[in-house]
């Protein structure tokens, strides 16, 4: 999957949780949960959405690595290889 395509999937999933998100305003290098108001239920639903769309397993132990949008994209890219 192309990076651009992957980003589109991730942002679309994010928008199902936080419809107010503006794609252009998302900084890939800032903590996602600071940019978008996500509580732990939202975060879990976001990851469930990614799991269902991309068929990747995301163990809870990996949550700590998923801070920025860039982290999430890198993590998913590695998982999808």
């Amino acid at each position, binding site marked *: 999957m192309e990076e651009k395509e992957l980003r589109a999937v991730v942002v679309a999933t994010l928008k199902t949780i936080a419809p107010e998100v503006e794609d252009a305003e998302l900084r890939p290098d800032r903590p996602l949960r600071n940019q978008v108001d996500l*509580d*732990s239920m939202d975060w879990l639903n976001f990851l*469930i959405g990614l799991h269902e769309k991309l068929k990747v397993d995301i163990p*809870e132990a990996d949550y700590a690595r998923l801070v920025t949008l860039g982290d999430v994209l890198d993590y998913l890219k590695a998982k999808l290889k």
Partner: protein
Amino acid sequence: MIEFKLPSLGADMDEGKLLEWKVRPGDTVKKGQVVAIVDTSKAAVDVESWSEGTVFELLIEPGETIPVGTVMATLLEAGESAETAKRTKHEVPVAKPAAPTPAPAAAAHPAPAVTGRRRISPAARKHAEELGVDIESVAGTGPEGSVTLADVEQAAAKKVSPARTATAPDKTPDKAAEMRKAIAAAMSRSKREIPHYYLSEPVPMRRATQWLAQANEGRPITSRLLMAVLQLKAVALALKKFPEMNGFFRDGAFQPSVAAHIGVAISLRQGGLIAPAIHDVGGKTLEQLMLDLTDLVKRARAGSLRSSEMSDPTITVTNLGEQGVAAVYGVIYPPQVALVGFGRVNDQPQVENGALTVMPMVTASLAADHRVSDGHRGALFLAELRDLLQQPENL
């Protein structure tokens, strides 16, 4: 004859707008069955019946805004029939004239339609006539394919000229402003009437976080637990020993509740908050609580809650730690008598067995009603809550 009145769905509700009837004259109604959808300032609420019977008359038309306590419908009790039931004149509070010409009561229509026919509510049919829409051509999106007011309006919007639609009443009043007003009213009442006292207790969370990590390790992502459900269950169990924190203060007296129906404060993305109940938290497993919480948050955000969820909370739990605060000192939601708050769970320097260590901690707080309990009992309640969170395997 049973009178079905618009219930109060919280201290901040004094009127509601009937959106849709889910029953029609002649239908039998069970306890807990959803009979109507009513729009409040916070959500479109599925209003449930508290008694069993057969629908006799629907007295309010969809679109009407009515005060809490208004008789909306009458039900026949078992053994009663339309002939034997003498309808008494109801003391109906004067409703705001939401519709310029009150539509005739649905009961004026003849016997319920034969099953198998298309389900079209009387209000939808009437509205279709007003808008010049052929009701038979309207696709129904309601339950069992029923044609709702919204379906009629959508069909009308497609065919009616812009000049005509411009005369339609504004269907999107400022919900955010309405909700702010409702919260302001409830919270002002709380601060005016309830003598709050506040306590807080630092709670070690090492065992709970370790237990949770281990429990989630073997679970697929779709059935993982959140710390919030451990906290909710611990609150419910602590309440068993401290019933004076759980119930309602009404008419000058405290009415304790046996079950802990915990109102969960849920912030809404468009602003404002809502705190619907998860029923009988103490009697549920953590897995069940997680399912209930997920479902409740989803429906609260979608604006689709049940009346019992709105009116039943016997205590509220708020978890503002999600937003990063260390502790929260809440305002009690009347007629409840207590609110438990959790701050964020984070690593703190702690002394353990005489040595300095790093420990995940959370500050649990209690705002309670001094008319019902004293600080001493409140302190013991928080200590019990702290101890329960040290034994996550027993939650």
